[in-house]
């Protein structure tokens, strides 16, 4: 390996580390803990692990919609399981984000029935309007566009998920309106 190649490699690793290692402040509030305990109570006492998926949802919602390694460790501690048991689940399910994401994530369904109704053109339109490619948050961290697989709203296509809710029968005008509403802080993301 030449000197040049070695420097390149070191540089690439540095970039990768900067990109993947983000700090997250962890704050498990009393109300969040109460909700977690309620979820744990849904299962027999020796089956706390079963509450993992719902607990990860709650914790993620309370932490800017993503789960750092530290936060996943915290969840493992709460549920009395090994950290790896949380990591393997967080990496399996698509709804858990393991890096910071845009506050308003436009998750477009891109499976066949939505495509028949023109979702691909709408995604292009949204990306162009926000000036970002699919899967990358805007510089202000406010928006992110993603393509996801079937969301079960084929009869109301084209559609997307925004927070806990669906936005259906989308048009360019509706997307413009949604972006404006998000900027004006008029959109409720979570139904708590």
């Amino acid at each position, binding site marked *: 390996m030449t000197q040049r190649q070695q420097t390149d490699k070191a540089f690439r690793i540095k970039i990768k580390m900067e990109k993947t290692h983000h700090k997250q402040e962890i704050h498990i509030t009393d109300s969040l803990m109460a909700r977690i305990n309620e979820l744990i109570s849904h299962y027999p006492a020796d089956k706390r692990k079963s509450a993992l998926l719902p607990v990860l949802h709650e914790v993620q919602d309370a932490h800017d919609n993503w789960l750092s390694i530290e936060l996943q460790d915290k969840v493992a501690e709460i549920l009395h399981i090994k950290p790896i*048991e949380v990591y393997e689940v967080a990496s399996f399910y698509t709804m858990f984000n393991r890096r910071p994401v845009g506050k308003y994530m436009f998750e477009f369904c891109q*499976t066949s029935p939505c495509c028949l109704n023109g979702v691909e053109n709408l995604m292009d339109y949204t990306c162009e309007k926000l000036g970002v490619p699919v899967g990358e948050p805007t510089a202000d961290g406010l928006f992110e566009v993603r393509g996801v697989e079937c969301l*079960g709203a084929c009869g109301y296509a084209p559609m997307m998920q925004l927070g806990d809710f669906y936005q259906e029968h989308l048009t360019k005008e509706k997307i413009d309106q949604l972006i404006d509403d998000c900027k004006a802080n008029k959109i409720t993301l979570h139904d708590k």
Partner: protein
Amino acid sequence: MSQKILLDKINVPGIKTYEVYRQNGGYASVEKALKTLTPDEVVEEVKTSGLRGRGGAGFPTGMKWSFIDKKSGKPRHLVCNADESEPGTFKDRFLMEYIPHLLIEGMITSSYALGCNLSYIYIRGEYMWVYKILERALAEARAAGWLGKNILGTGYDLELYVQIGAGAYICGEETALIESLEGKRGNPRIKPPFPAISGLWTNPTVVNNVETIAAVPWIVNNSGADYAKIGIGRSTGTKLISASGHIKNQGVYEIELGLSVYEFMNSDAYLGGMSSDRPLKAFVPGGSSVPVLPANLIYKTAAGEDRLMTYESLSDGGFATGSMLGSGGFIVYNDTACIVRNTWNFSRFYHHESCGQCSPCREGTGWLEKVLHRIENGHGREEDVDLLLSIQSKIEGNTICPLGDAASWPVAAAIRHFRDEFEYHIRFPEKIKNRDHFVAEPFEQVKHLVAKQTI
């Protein structure tokens, strides 16, 4: 109009709430079952009804229930599969969103029949707002005394909770769902043992679809024999169909099984025909996993009989000329839809959703996606069509769960019925580039071009 069993009260204002639901005869099946019937009598009624699993496989529900292990003395569980994620299907969401207490009532009655004291509804993560609707409905039911200890003073105890998933199609497979409910990755288990013997926390477990459970109250209130009178032959009762694609009235419909496909597609009471003047090209009757059918096999079977909305008629002729009722995800395509693009889209879906346990599926779905992607983008090779057939035949039947089959059937069917279109993509790459996601030439023209071309 045909008889409605699940959606008959859907238009009653406020039916979402407990009070209105109860005033309209809600929870009567729980009263009847707990006070006047033994659990085995409820199972018998469901057996008599001929009700079949509405999630896609169509397995007789009563028979599934009778497999549950009662001898071991272990606690038993009923789990409702609300992880609806088959492309083209959105019926369960409709039921849960607009009449959540119907599912809860069905869960209580069915849990009683199976002798379960702890049951769960597993709902997909994306339906987060529906999850909240169900949680609130459960709290209402609990406050009204339908859940908890000693329900209606009969000594029967039941706890029922909803559990939320987090975005994995594979969790619709019953053993993967159980794994997920245990807080693990959704990797399907090897069967046997079947869940009826060893399911959730190794306890005997029955997993049923939302629509199946929602049909139980009517069967208990009336009778299994009455339910069996609706429909034709072994396709008894009603079925929810979620219709999407190039049709006038997209949405969820409850039909009596046995309705003709022609009437369903063209009657104003149902789909109301095509959405534009473009002719019908193809349809998928039961969600993305089932084989696509071309226009000439939609209204008539290969034998020339009317095609009906039943398990048997839709699968008439096997996969050579038939398809499956599946989950009732009805996707209709007009002649602007590109079958290659559609097949690539489905393959991408299955590649994304493969859990990665079995190599034929993990690798094969990726290969299907890649080969279809290059055909679709004008880089196809002459041997690619046969390559696709070879890959799909090596996935099918070689995996733990049916996802491998579900990924390979649509590819095989698309090539079986629309091979010309694949070859057109390969031989005329310049014609399919830079188009607005649709084929530029109508399908008949494609055939003509392919026939003229010699290599």
